[in-house]
């Protein structure tokens, strides 16, 4: 279960997989299940496979929203090995080797996103992938994952994938397809008129197939790439700067000061997990002097911006100016002082530049977002060069994806060719251009002119609808393949389950078209790596290990050694820089932003990315980290801009609502637009070049004025049952291929109508309570005890003795001494914790609010999706929520400070919830867990009322979907599936704790037996620190969550608690609930010259 055990049965796992999927026996094993699936006995077993309880779908909207089942029978392949069902038992014909019935296993694989891979370990319960963990050995993961990887298991079972291979809607066989494509290719000798449209491709084996087989045989085939959410500005800019296209690799570990220009390094991009880890390693509270400093100038509030020590919001088109300004201050190759920019921006740039230059060479880093124009990348390259960072904090490698730099351009070319009739055949691989292509391209119309279009994709979506052929693609958990990470490291993608929805593999198609047609994907991949292995470059490798061994090891480890790209020696092209500078200075005058000079910026969405995840309930319901909006996108703007545009922020107005959410009799609050769940906001009509779109307005403090940010990926017309109907608005309609990231000259007019946003936290302020305790390095040096002191203020005017008690009492609580209670301590009598005392520390300094923990928890604990309507009623079910508070004056965007605070169940020792439960459905366990017993709960909801942290969640309706069978397969068999009317909450992943405990007990018992002596639990049955890893902890990229045994003095958590005791506090400690979950204060490292938070702590 824990990351430790993941690596316990290596070879065995591998063999079993190979068995399953390579030798015919294995195939037999899989297919037999399909046949099995037809028998009604099997259906019945499936019915019984998971708890069947009373209650049907109730809330119509939720029902519509939630995935319901189609084609169950096939979806159930691989299920029969699971826990025995209620009515019948269906044993295997032959147990797959190495599979211990009832035990889950982990397989290394990787998830490609926009071409780039993140290494994963997928947990399989008897052939059912149920959970994703990060692969510690993988450079882009380091054990963490992002929300997309977590949610990928849900995507795997998504019944909407079920479409089948069709031609004009009629079913066709794979062979028909191969024949038909072959015919198309042969129409002209060299395949002229055949176009191939793909997304970004980094897969070495696929590239090899394409370039060395396919394109060799058909040289006139045109291969076009399209990646809506990626920009080539970076690569092209650096190509200018260094003469050849390169990709930057940052080393945040050794950067003391970082300046980020509109680059959301901590939460976006193929390497963000790694960067977040590296960044947090430099924000350690144990070593305040070593803390780095982060300056962020950005065009919309990102997680990186929230963590910044100094952040200045600038319109996207001002960032360039700022870059030049800084370059000027750093005296980069004759950059003159650019005009314009506000006073404070200029000051900010000056101070930042001074800070950068004042530090040693190669100890700083300037990063810039790919969305920024090439010129900025050039100038930043120059700056980094000037600061001596190149080779130190930033190095460059050859682009990882092939044909770098043509992604953004080439689509236009294709459209032109389609319109001019040059295209006879178009094969679209996974991309969804009809939806994602720029509005100016009118891709759909052009597509209709192509006589024969093939579409291979996971979903039968907007594009498939107007294509002749639809070929169901296979999910990465279903198919063989390989992918490269941001730094070039390659990983072999191995399937954990046979394709559920007739999915096929593009590489098999290419193989089919090649001279050696019948190779399946696994063979193709293996073959490629064999050639790679035999290539002259790998002599060393060959001498050390035979291929089979090497290949298996590579699969098992999830990384192929020797594939990491080497840093390139680059030389800055002075003239290129000079040219850029000249161009900039001769460029247009700076025009201050105003309501007539609005800017719009487009960014991929943190839930649905470019739209490809638009049918994923987990992601849609995940509150976005800064806005806390679910199930929607919005036009994000600053308070000032909203007022100037005449958006009414008084949400009391009773306008017609689009959806039938009942009205709140209560008035809502300030510009936050209502509380918990329901937010009535005005909608605004954005129009640009005659195209317009209506979006709800969401005001975010700290957003640059006169700039509107919109997120891609919503308003899908054919996403599936979950993501199709009125889920957000499609901003691609506003986006042109010419300026895909930001555009000027947009008109914004309030519609006077209102829209209901499902927002899980729209109360922005902490109300002067010290829930998040935030301070500075300097402040801490002055007064190391400030955190505790704040606790005092927490109960500020509270009678002072009382508070002091509370204060100390908390510390004592650790040793279980004094108490505020008049009653004697239970803990001191028979309920003294004998062996374990589980606890959790959440580090607010490093938490980047990325929400990976939220989705991970949902995946691990079978947490249902409730749908927008229920969220608007304040009934979302997430066991861990990330609170977000703002500080500062909403009118002064640059003074803004924001804080993240993940809040799971605090596992109080004096739990208020337990005392009020009439049926003892929530009680304490022998190791101090606050157990929640679903099957005892009668649902009075008193516990939730009495929970000061409001972390309990209630099944107001039948949220868990018992109706759709395929959805059951994603459930974690170790966790009870809750029914209607039952309270639930974070359990510290008790299933993992108990599993580890059982293992430890067994270990100890056998040990004692071997040594022929009595068992001594304390000695023999120890659980290694780190053996139990909670789902949230496992995925956390910034390592902000530490879980462990407070009684084990050597555990990481115990040590941490001792080391930074002065930073350790618990929320609402004055209530004497004695939470087991405590927090480390948020410490920033502002530059004294800019520090606008005068006192020690904000």
């Amino acid at each position, binding site marked *: 279960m824990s990351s430790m055990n993941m690596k316990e049965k290596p070879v065995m796992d591998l063999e079993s997989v190979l068995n399953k999927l390579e030798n015919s026996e294995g195939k037999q094993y899989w297919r037999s299940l399909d046949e099995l699936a037809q028998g009604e006995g099997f259906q019945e077993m499936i019915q019984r496979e998971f708890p069947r309880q009373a209650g049907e779908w*109730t*809330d119509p909207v939720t029902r519509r929203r939630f995935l319901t089942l189609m084609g169950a029978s096939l979806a159930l392949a691989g299920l029969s090995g699971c826990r025995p069902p209620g009515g019948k038992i269906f044993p295997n014909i032959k147990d797959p080797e190495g599979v211990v019935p009832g035990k889950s296993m982990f397989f290394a694989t990787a998830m490609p996103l926009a071409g780039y891979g993140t290494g994963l370990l997928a947990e399989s319960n008897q052939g059912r992938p149920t959970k994703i963990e990060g692969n510690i050995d993988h450079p882009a993961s380091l054990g963490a994952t992002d929300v997309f990887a977590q949610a990928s298991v849900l995507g795997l079972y998504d019944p909407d994938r079920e479409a089948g291979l069709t031609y004009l809607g009629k079913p066709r066989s794979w062979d028909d397809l191969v024949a038909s494509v072959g015919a198309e290719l042969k129409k002209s000798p060299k395949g002229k008129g055949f176009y191939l449209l793909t997304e970004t491709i980094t897969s070495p084996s696929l590239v090899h197939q394409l370039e060395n087989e396919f394109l060799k045989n058909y040289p006139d085939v045109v291969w076009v790439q399209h990646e809506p959410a990626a920009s080539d500005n970076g690569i092209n800019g650096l190509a200018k700067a260094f003469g050849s296209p390169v990709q930057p690799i940052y080393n945040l570990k050794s950067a003391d000061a970082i300046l980020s220009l509109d680059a959301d390094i901590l939460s976006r991009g193929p390497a963000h997990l790694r960067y977040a880890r590296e960044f947090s390693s430099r924000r350690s509270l144990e070593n305040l002097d070593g803390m780095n400093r982060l300056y962020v100038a950005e065009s919309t509030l990102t997680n990186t911006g929230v963590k910044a020590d100094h952040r200045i919001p600038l319109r996207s088109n001002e960032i360039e100016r700022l870059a030049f300004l800084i370059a000027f201050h750093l005296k980069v190759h004759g950059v003159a002082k650019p005009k314009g920019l506000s006073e404070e921006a200029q000051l900010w740039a000056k101070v930042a530049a001074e800070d950068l230059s004042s530090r040693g060479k190669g100890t700083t880093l300037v990063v810039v977002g790919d969305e920024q124009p090439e010129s900025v990348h050039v100038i930043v390259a120059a700056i980094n060069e000037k600061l001596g960072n190149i080779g130190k904090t930033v190095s460059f490698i050859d682009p990882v994806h092939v044909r770098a730099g043509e992604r953004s351009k080439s689509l236009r070319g294709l459209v032109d060719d389609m319109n001019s009739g040059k295209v006879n055949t178009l094969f679209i691989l996974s991309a969804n251009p009809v939806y994602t292509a720029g509005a100016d391209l009118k891709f759909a119309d052009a597509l209709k002119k192509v006589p024969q279009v093939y579409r291979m994709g996971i979903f039968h979506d907007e594009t498939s609808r107007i294509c002749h052929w639809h070929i169901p693609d296979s999910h990465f958990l279903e198919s063989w393949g390989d992918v490269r990470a941001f730094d070039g490291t390659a990983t072999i993608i191995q399937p954990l389950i046979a394709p559920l929805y007739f999915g096929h593999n593009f590489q098999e198609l290419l193989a089919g078209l090649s001279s050696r047609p019948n190779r399946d994907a696994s063979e193709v991949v293996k073959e490629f790596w064999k050639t790679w292995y035999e290539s002259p470059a790998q002599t060393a490798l060959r001498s050390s290990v035979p291929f089979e061994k090497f290949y298996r090891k590579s699969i098992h480890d999830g990384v192929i050694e020797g594939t990491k790209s080497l840093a390139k020696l680059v030389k800055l092209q002075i003239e290129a820089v000079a040219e850029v500078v000249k161009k900039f200075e001769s460029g247009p005058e700076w025009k201050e932003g105003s309501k007539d000079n609005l800017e719009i910026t487009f960014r991929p969405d943190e839930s649905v990315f470019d739209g490809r995840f638009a049918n994923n309930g987990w992601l849609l319901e995940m509150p976005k980290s800064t806005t806390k909006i679910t199930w929607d996108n919005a036009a994000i703007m600053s308070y000032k801009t909203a007022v100037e545009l005449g958006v009414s922020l008084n949400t009391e107005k009773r306008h017609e609502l689009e959806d039938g959410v*009942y*009205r*709140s*009799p*209560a008035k*809502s609050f300030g510009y936050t637009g*209502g*509380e*918990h*769940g*329901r937010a009535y906001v005005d909608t605004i009509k954005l129009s640009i070049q005659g195209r317009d779109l209506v979006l709800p307005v969401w005001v975010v403090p700290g957003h640059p004025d006169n700039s509107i940010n919109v997120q891609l990926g919503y308003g899908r017309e054919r996403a599936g049952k979950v993501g199709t109907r009125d889920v957000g608005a499609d901003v691609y309609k506003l986006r042109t291929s010419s300026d895909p990231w930001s555009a000027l000259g947009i008109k914004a007019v309030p519609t006077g109508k209102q829209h209901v946003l499902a927002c899980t*936290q729209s*109360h922005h302020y902490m*109300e*002067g*309570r010290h*829930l998040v305790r935030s301070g500075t390095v300097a402040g801490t040096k002055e007064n190391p005890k400030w955190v505790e002191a704040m606790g005092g203020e927490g*109960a*500020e*005017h*509270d009678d002072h003795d009382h508070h002091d008690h509370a204060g100390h009492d908390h510390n004592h609580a650790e040793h279980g001494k004094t108490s505020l209670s008049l009653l004697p301590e239970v803990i001191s009598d028979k309920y003294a914790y004998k062996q374990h005392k589980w606890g959790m520390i959440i580090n607010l300094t490093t938490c980047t609010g990325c929400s990976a923990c939220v989705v991970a928890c949902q995946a691990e604990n079978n947490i249902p999706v409730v749908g927008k309507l*229920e969220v608007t*009623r*304040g*009934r979302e079910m997430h066991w861990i*929520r990330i*609170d977000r508070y703002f500080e500062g004056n909403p009118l002064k965007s640059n003074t803004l400070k924001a804080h993240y605070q993940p*809040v799971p169940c605090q596992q109080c020792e004096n739990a*208020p919830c337990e*005392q*009020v*439960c*009439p*049926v*003892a459905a929530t009680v304490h366990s022998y190791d101090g867990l606050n157990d929640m017993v679903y099957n*005892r709960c*009668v*649902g*009075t*909801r*008193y516990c*939730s*009322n*009495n929970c*000061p*942290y*409001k972390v309990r969640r*209630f*099944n*107001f*309706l*039948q949220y868990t979907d018992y109706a759709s069978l395929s959805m059951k397969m994603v459930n974690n068999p170790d966790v009870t599936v809750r029914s*209607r*009317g039952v*309270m639930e909450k974070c359990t510290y992943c008790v299933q993992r704790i108990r599993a580890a405990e059982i293992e430890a007990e067994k270990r100890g018992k056998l040990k004692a037996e071997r040594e022929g002596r009595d068992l001594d639990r304390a000695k023999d049955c120890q659980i290694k620190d780190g053996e139990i890893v909670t789902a949230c902890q496992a995925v956390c990229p910034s390592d902000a969550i530490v879980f462990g045994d407070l009684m084990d003095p050597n555990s990481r958590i115990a040590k941490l608690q001792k080391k930074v005791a002065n930073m350790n506090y618990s*929320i*609402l400690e004055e*209530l004497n609930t004695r939470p087991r979950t405590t927090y480390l204060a948020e410490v920033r490292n502002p530059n004294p010259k800019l520090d606008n938070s005068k006192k020690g702590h904000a």
Partner: protein
Amino acid sequence: MATEVSHTGPSLRPDPQPPMVGGKHSFDTMTDKITSVIFAVTPKGWIFGFAISFLVLQVLLMSITYLLYEGIGIWGVNIPVGWGFDIVNFVWWIGIGHAGTLISAILLLFNQTWRTSINRFAEAMTLFAVACAGIYPLAHMGRPWFAFWLLPYPNTMQLWPQFRSPLEWDVFAVSTYFSVSLMYWYIGLIPDFASVRDRAPNQLLRMIYGILSLGWRGGSMHWHRYETAYLMLAGLSTPLVLSVHTIISFDFAVSNLPGWHATIFPPYFVAGAVYSGFAMVINLAVPIRHYYGMKDFITDKHLDNMAKVMLATGLMVFYGYGVEAFMAYYSANEFERDLMMKNRVFGPYGLFYFALIFCNGLMPQVLWFQKVRSNEAILFIVSIIVNIGMWLERFVILMSLQRDFMPSAWGQYSPTFWDISTYIGTFGLFMSLMFLFCRVLPMISIAEMKHLLPEAHVHSHNDSHGHTESAHGGSH
């Protein structure tokens, strides 16, 4: 035999007090007047009224059925506001009930003869109100079909209820309250059942009421034991009625929520209960005395007294609000303060708070005036407003939930159609039962009323006279 009188203490016996019976009445006419209601042909008005109530009762059944089918998600409750109309109405109904017990028990102990004519239907009101209240704790559960887990009995899980929970206390309090009130009401009825039996026009009624009366004959020793039991019950239900609403208030006071966690709750909940209870009694008494022409038994004096009680309890409640606000300020606990300011007074439900201050605090001050107290129309309206006020009070208290410790979790609550229909439905239940009661049971205690007549007095001089006579007789 002064000693004897003292040992029984207060009793059904009349004391020299202003007559609480108007008009010219003998034992006979009085019995006749009260029982005749039962024997009379069903009046059109009654049929109409009952029909309406019964219809509304169906709304309740519908709502409950749908609730069981769909789950409490059909209500407006959410996180953080886990309790809404359900508990508001529960507390409100229970509160209504209290006047009945108070009138029949406490006033009895205090020898208030004016209770006699109203205690019977006041007690009925108690029972019916508690019945309505009882629906909510069951219905508001997520899994009502497991409600029996709150009862202690040896089960196959070997589990027991969690006795530290106020909700568990409620189980004991409410069930005890209901059963004691029921018994109290019933033994009060026994002699009257006998009267009805003996005047019944036909055999069937004779049999029915004969069984209900258990064959009551009114022997001297029976009366003696009867009085004793009745008094003990009065003595027991007095602390009981206080404890019940105290325990209800514990549901809130025991929690740690700002706005709930207050020691003032028990007393001012009890006061509030009596307050609304009396209001409800007036709301019932006024139409009844009109409709059945019982002005002689429920006199203006009765209304006046009840109005006074309302005024008194009203002031206590008002004081309670004051203390709440003051404590919030004086405790210097930021959460309490914020709750008071950011939630109650100026929060989203501020309107309700001020409304309740008006309904319960200011408006009832008119009861200081004799003129108002003697004007049953105004009294009726005032009582209705008070009942609304008391409902608002509970609502405002429940709404403390929506903004407690963590601003991130602050939320709002708004009732749905089903919240409201359930509430209205309970009126259907209440009124239907009330109508049935008026129709088939003696709505005023006959036996006790008889005391209020001068003929009921034993002229003690006859005692001594009797002695001599008997001696004389013996000499014969």
